[in-house]
C-alpha cells in the first residue's frame, strides 16, 4: 500500500480534494449554542444570590416605608419606649437596641477571650492527637441548633445562676448572653485559628531560634501577625450574636426595657420580630409593619459589621 495514501494529511492533497471534511473544523465548538446556553444558565444561578440580597433589602425597605408613614423615623430612633401592643402604642426602638447590645456584650465577654485562647491552643500548643479530638468537638458545638441552646439556657443555665444570684428573674439577659457567647465561641476559635496559621512558620521559628519562650512567640509574633484576622473574627462573631434569635426569644424574655441590668428580662430586636409573627397580628397593621422596620435596622447593623470585617482584613492584613 502506498504510504502517502494512508496518511491523514494525504486527504489534504490539493490534487484529490474531498468534498466534505470528516469534521467541520470551521465550527467553533467552544462557542456553540449549547455551550453558550449552559454558560448563561450557570450565570443566572450565580445571579440568584444577588437577587436574594436585593429581595431581602427590597422587602425590608418597602414594608418599612408603610411603617415610617405612620411613625416618624426620628421618633423610631430616639424615643425610649417600645410598647406596640398598648392602647397608646409607642415606637421608640432604643429599648430593643439596648437589649440586643446587652446580650451581645455579655456574649462577647465569654466568646472573645475564650475563643481566641482556644484558637491559640489549637494552633500552637495542642499535640496532634489532642487536636484530633478538640477540633471536631468545637465543630460539633458550632453545629448545635440554636433552639437547643435556648432550651439549655432556660432549663439549665438560668436555674444554675439563680442559685448564685437569687434575685435573677426566670427570663434574664445574663443567662441568654452567656449561652449566646458559647454559641459564637467556635466561630471565633476557628476563624482566629485560620488567621494564626496564616502567619508564616519562619517568623515563629526565627523567634524560637533567638531563645523566645512559647508565650513570647505567641504574644509577640503570632497574635500581632494575625491581628487583622483575629479582629475580623471578633466582628463577625458579634454580628452573629446580634442576629441570634432563638436563644434570646426563649431565655431573655419579652420585656422591652432600656436597661443595663443583666439580671432583668429584656427583649432584643430579633425576639420582637419572632414575638410579632407568633401572635395573630393582623397583616397591614402598624405593629405588623414595625416588624419590618426593626428587621431593616437589624439588616443594616449586621451588614455594616460584616462589611467592616471585610475591610479590616483587606486594609490591615500583614502581607508576607
Amino acid at each position: 500500500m502506498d504510504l502517502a495514501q494512508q496518511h491523514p494529511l494525504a486527504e489534504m492533497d490539493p490534487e484529490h480534494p474531498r468534498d466534505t471534511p470528516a469534521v467541520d473544523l470551521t465550527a467553533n465548538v467552544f462557542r456553540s449554542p449549547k455551550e453558550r446556553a449552559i454558560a448563561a444558565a450557570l450565570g443566572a444561578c450565580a445571579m440568584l444570590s444577588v437577587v436574594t440580597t436585593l429581595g431581602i433589602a427590597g422587602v425590608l425597605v418597602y414594608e418599612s416605608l408603610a411603617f415610617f408613614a405612620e411613625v416618624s423615623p426620628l421618633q423610631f430612633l430616639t424615643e425610649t419606649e417600645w410598647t406596640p401592643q398598648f392602647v397608646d402604642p409607642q415606637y421608640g426602638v432604643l429599648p430593643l437596641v439596648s437589649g440586643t447590645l446587652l446580650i451581645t456584650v455579655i456574649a462577647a465577654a465569654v466568646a472573645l477571650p475564650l475563643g481566641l485562647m482556644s484558637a491559640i491552643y489549637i494552633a500552637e500548643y495542642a499535640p496532634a492527637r489532642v487536636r484530633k479530638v478538640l477540633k471536631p468537638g468545637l465543630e460539633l458545638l458550632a453545629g448545635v441548633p440554636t433552639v437547643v441552646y435556648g432550651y439549655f439556657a432556660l432549663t439549665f443555665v438560668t436555674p444554675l445562676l439563680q442559685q448564685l444570684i437569687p434575685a435573677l428573674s426566670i427570663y434574664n439577659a445574663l443567662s441568654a448572653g452567656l449561652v449566646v457567647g458559647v454559641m459564637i465561641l467556635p466561630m471565633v476559635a476557628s476563624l482566629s485559628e485560620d488567621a494564626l496559621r496564616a502567619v508564616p512558620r519562619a517568623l515563629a521559628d526565627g523567634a524560637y531560634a533567638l531563645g523566645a519562650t512559647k508565650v513570647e512567640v505567641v504574644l509577640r509574633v503570632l497574635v500581632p501577625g494575625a491581628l487583622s484576622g483575629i479582629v475580623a473574627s471578633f466582628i463577625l462573631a458579634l454580628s452573629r450574636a446580634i442576629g441570634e434569635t432563638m436563644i434570646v426569644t426563649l431565655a431573655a424574655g419579652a420585656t422591652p426595657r432600656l436597661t443595663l441590668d443583666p439580671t432583668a428580662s429584656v427583649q432584643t430586636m430579633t425576639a420582637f420580630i419572632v414575638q410579632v409573627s407568633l401572635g395573630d397580628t393582623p397583616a397591614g397593621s402598624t405593629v405588623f409593619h414595625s416588624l419590618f422596620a426593626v428587621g431593616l435596622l437589624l439588616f443594616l447593623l449586621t451588614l455594616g459589621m460584616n462589611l467592616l470585617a471585610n475591610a479590616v482584613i483587606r486594609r490591615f492584613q500583614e502581607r508576607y
Partner: protein
Amino acid sequence: MPTAAPDFDAPDFDERVAARKRRSLVLAAALFLATLFGILVLVTLLVDVFLKGLPWLDLGFLDSYPSRIPERAGIKSALVGSLWVMGLTALLAVPVGVASAVFLEEYAPRSWLFRAIQVNIANLAGVPSVLYGILGLALFVRFFGLGRSLLAGSITMALLVLPVLIIATQEALRAVPSGLRESAYALGATRWQVVWGHLLPVAAPGILTGVILALSRAIGETAPLIMIGAFSFVAFLPASVMDSFTVLPIQIFNWTARPQVAFQGLAAAAIVVLMVLLFTMNLSAILLRNHFERHRGG
C-alpha cells in the same frame, strides 16, 4: 524593642530564664482550660438533655401527634415535616448552588462583577436567619400566595443554605488539580465537557460534604420557619408541598416555652431525636469523604 546583646553573665540571668519559662507554662495551662471550657459545655448540654429526655423517649413518642396531654404527645408530624423540608430544600438548593459555584470558579471572568457576587455571597452567609424568614413571609407566603406551606418554607430554607453550599462547592472545585483541567482542554474538550466529565466527578466528595453540612443547618433552623408560620400544632402528615407543616425545632421551641415541667421533658426528648439525626448526618459526611479519599488514589 531593645537590641542590646543578652548579658549572659548578669547575676539574675538564670532566674529570669526560669521566670519566663514559668510564665509560659502558666499560659499554656490557661489556654488548655479555655479550650476545655467549650468541650465541657457541649458535654454538659448533651448529658443534661439526654437525662431529661430519656424517660419520654419510646416508639410511641416517635409515632404520636402533638397533644395537650404530655403522656400522649409525640413528634410524628414534626419529624416527617423536618424530613420533607430537608428533601425539598436539597432538591431546590443543590442544583442552583453547584451551578453558581461552577460558574464562579470555571466561567466567570475575574471582573468587578465576579468580585461583587463573591462579596455578596460572603455577606449573605452573615445575614441573620430571621431576616430570611421575613423575606419568605413577605415574598413567598404573601406576594406569591404560596401560603404557610411546605413549599414556601423550603424555598426560604434553600435561599438560607445557598451561600454555605456555594462556598463549600467552590472550595471543592478549587481543590481539583489544575493539571486535570489543562489536560482535558488540551485534548479539545469544551468547558462544559471539562466541568461535567472531569471536575464534578473529582470534586463530588467535597461537594457532597458541603451538601450534608448545609442540610444539617437547614434541619436545625427555627426562626425562619416561625416567620413563615409553620404551625406548631399539626395533627396530620403533609400530603403535598402546599400543605401546612411543622418541624422538629419548632416543636422543641413550643414545648420549651411552656411552663409545665412535663413539656420540658418532651422538649428534651425531641432534642435527643434532633441531635441523633444531626449526628448521623455529620458522621455520614465524614465517612463519605473518607471513603472517596481512599478510593480515588491514582
